[in-house]
């Protein structure tokens, strides 16, 4: 009777023992040496796997960082959502210095709302910007403007964008945007630009990418940059952050001091700022000392 229990136990025990020895030997033989630093680096990354860095997921970037660290320079690599804090922490783990990178934010550069650029055509194809872009200039006729089908919103993994039904344009929430750059890549018209967040969140940008001549652009959009050059003249002489090319003004964020003067002179209100630009000095009466310069 006892043999009926004993034999199977001995048999299975023996099989288990042999299998354990075999497993142990194979594990020893085929052992893959993985750099323990990869795990450490991956832990410091946000783990959203957004792909903003250009690598397949956070672990992909961690591997690339460790590989680059062995060569002695991790300068070219960065995690857009993690920003410089994450990179600094990684640098400490790897014992390398990391250059401070400026925090960035995605900025929409189109002001063609329903009101400013009325829809004259109706698109009934597949609702994707990449497809509409190959078919025609868009429902409002602007060959450079937002198509309003929301490819950028679809790719945003951080819920930082939504389509505004009222304007027909996407809205970026700067508080949620981690500057992964997915929307910049998704936009077939390159309307979204990655710009530095700026000191105290003060940013000024041209809200248009249209390169057509002013008169032609005004035909379909009242908010277009018409390339008049007023902003270029208004920009302080020592700053000269604005350049005019192909009928389009561009504000260089590296040079811009966010004074907001250009915002006020733009005839089509195509220059936007994140702050209330200071009112121009009234010519006739001298204002009181406590001029209402909006605190930044």
């Amino acid at each position, binding site marked *: 009777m006892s043999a009926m229990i004993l034999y199977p136990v001995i048999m299975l025990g023996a099989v288990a023992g042999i299998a354990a020895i075999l497993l142990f030997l194979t594990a020893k033989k085929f052992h893959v040496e993985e750099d323990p630093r990869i795990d450490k680096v991956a832990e410091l990354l946000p783990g959203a796997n957004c792909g903003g860095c250009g690598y397949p997921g956070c672990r992909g970037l961690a591997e690339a960082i460790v590989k680059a660290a062995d060569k002695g320079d991790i300068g070219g690599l960065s995690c857009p959502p993690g920003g410089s804090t994450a990179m600094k922490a990684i640098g400490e783990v790897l014992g390398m210095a990391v250059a401070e990178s400026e925090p960035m934010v995605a900025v929409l550069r189109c002001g063609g709302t329903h009101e400013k650029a009325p829809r004259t055509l109706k698109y*009934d*194809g597949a609702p*994707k910007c990449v*497809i509409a872009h190959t078919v*025609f200039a868009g429902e409002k006729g602007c060959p450079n403007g937002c198509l309003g089908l929301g490819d950028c919103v679809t790719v945003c993994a951080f819920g930082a964008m939504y389509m505004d039904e009222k304007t027909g344009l996407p809205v970026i929430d700067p508080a949620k945007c981690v500057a992964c750059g997915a929307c910049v890549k998704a936009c077939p018209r390159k309307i979204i630009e990655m710009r530095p967040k700026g000191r105290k969140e003060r940013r000024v940008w041209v809200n248009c990418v249209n390169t057509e001549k002013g008169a032609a652009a005004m035909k379909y959009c009242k908010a277009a940059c018409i390339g008049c050059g007023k902003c270029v003249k208004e920009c302080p002489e020592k700053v000269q952050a604005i350049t005019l090319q192909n009928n389009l003004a561009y504000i260089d964020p590296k040079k811009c001091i966010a004074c907001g003067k250009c915002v006020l002179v733009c005839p089509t209100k195509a220059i936007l700022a994140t702050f209330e630009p200071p009112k121009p000095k009234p010519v006739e009466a001298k204002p009181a000392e406590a001029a209402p310069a909006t605190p930044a």
Partner: protein
Amino acid sequence: MDLKTFKIGGVHPPENKLSAGAPIEAAALPKRAFIHLGQHLGAPAKPIVQKGDKVRVGTLIGAGEGFISAAVHSSVSGTVFAIDAVVDASGYKRPAVIIDVEGDEWEPTIDRSPELKKDISLDKKAIVDRLKEAGIVGLGGATFPAHVKYMVPEGKKVDTLIINAVECEPYLTSDHRVMLERADEVLVGTRILMTALGVERAVIGIEANKPDAIEILSRKAKDHPGITVQALKVQYPQGAEKQLIKAILNREVPSGKLPLDVGCVVNNVGTTVAVYEAVQKNKPLFERIVTLTGKKLPRKANFLVRVGTPITQLIDACGGAPEGTAKFINGGPMMGKAMVNTDIPVTKGTSGVILVDEADARRNAPGACIRCAKCVAACPMGLEPYLIEKQAEYALWEDAEKEDAADCMECGCCQFTCPAARPLLDNIRLAKTTVMRIRRERSKK
């Protein structure tokens, strides 16, 4: 009658050849002509006139740039008003020469006599050079520069010239009218192209819904040794190069190869007339036949139009756009494209303009794919449209490449048959262009 056709896929949409009975008539000259510099496949021509220059009908105004390009000639006489960007059928602005029309003075080198010149005096090379000078492009719609097609590379052997007189697109009748009214020019033009290729055999493929054209060309072709007429079963897209070769010669063009690789060249029937005029009459390509049609259009017509004429003018000549017109289609209803406005000028590739009313233009709201495989059965290239659509939706470009998305010719059969009204072609076109871009980038490396 022995009717041939291609074997895989295809559909048969309602033919609606409403304008088949309307004889070709010359359209009135425009007041101002907008002649695009990129009317052909390949690099746009370079303008060689300036503002204020006087031009005559047939004056060269744009020189071909690069290997695949074509010359552009003035279609009117007058003064160059400007060289500016004008919206074309692509929906975007493209450079064009704008000419204020004054009178109708032709270049004296053009032979305007109506007599038929049958004897071909030029040799192979001279013909190809003449086609290049005259800016001849394929008039079927793809507008591929003709001279490039007839420069057969060393080592390739061509035995047959196929003349594409299928006109499988519903509504369009321009090729049909050309065959009925200009059959002699078609045949002499075909012989010129045979000489250019050095082949003894040419087959004119015509669908069986044009019995009058088959009859007239078969009768007249007896005087032209080597040219035969082949009647074909009505099936869309038989006018596609690869399908037509399969139908007539039962040869299959492999993926990524050209008709030249299976020993033939395909040429549109409208082009043969342009070839005849260029070689025998020294007349460059600056006018073409455009079908104006639509179920509610008061008058249907086939116009002989000077390139650069705004389409509005043609619509007005037919009694104006009827109320409720939702779309103006440039080209056939299957492969053509809705125009953004009717001020778009006629180019060398404009085969027709169709006015579609609200009921026909509306696209149904897409439903879910039920895997009925109708699109698979309809695809003449043997692809799996439902699968490529999904791959495009999820950006699986490598998979789409394996599914040969780049072989799609955008005939639209899949979308036409889809009971769920899925935007199949929209997405496949996206997959195709993306795969082709990826391939180009890869080959650069």
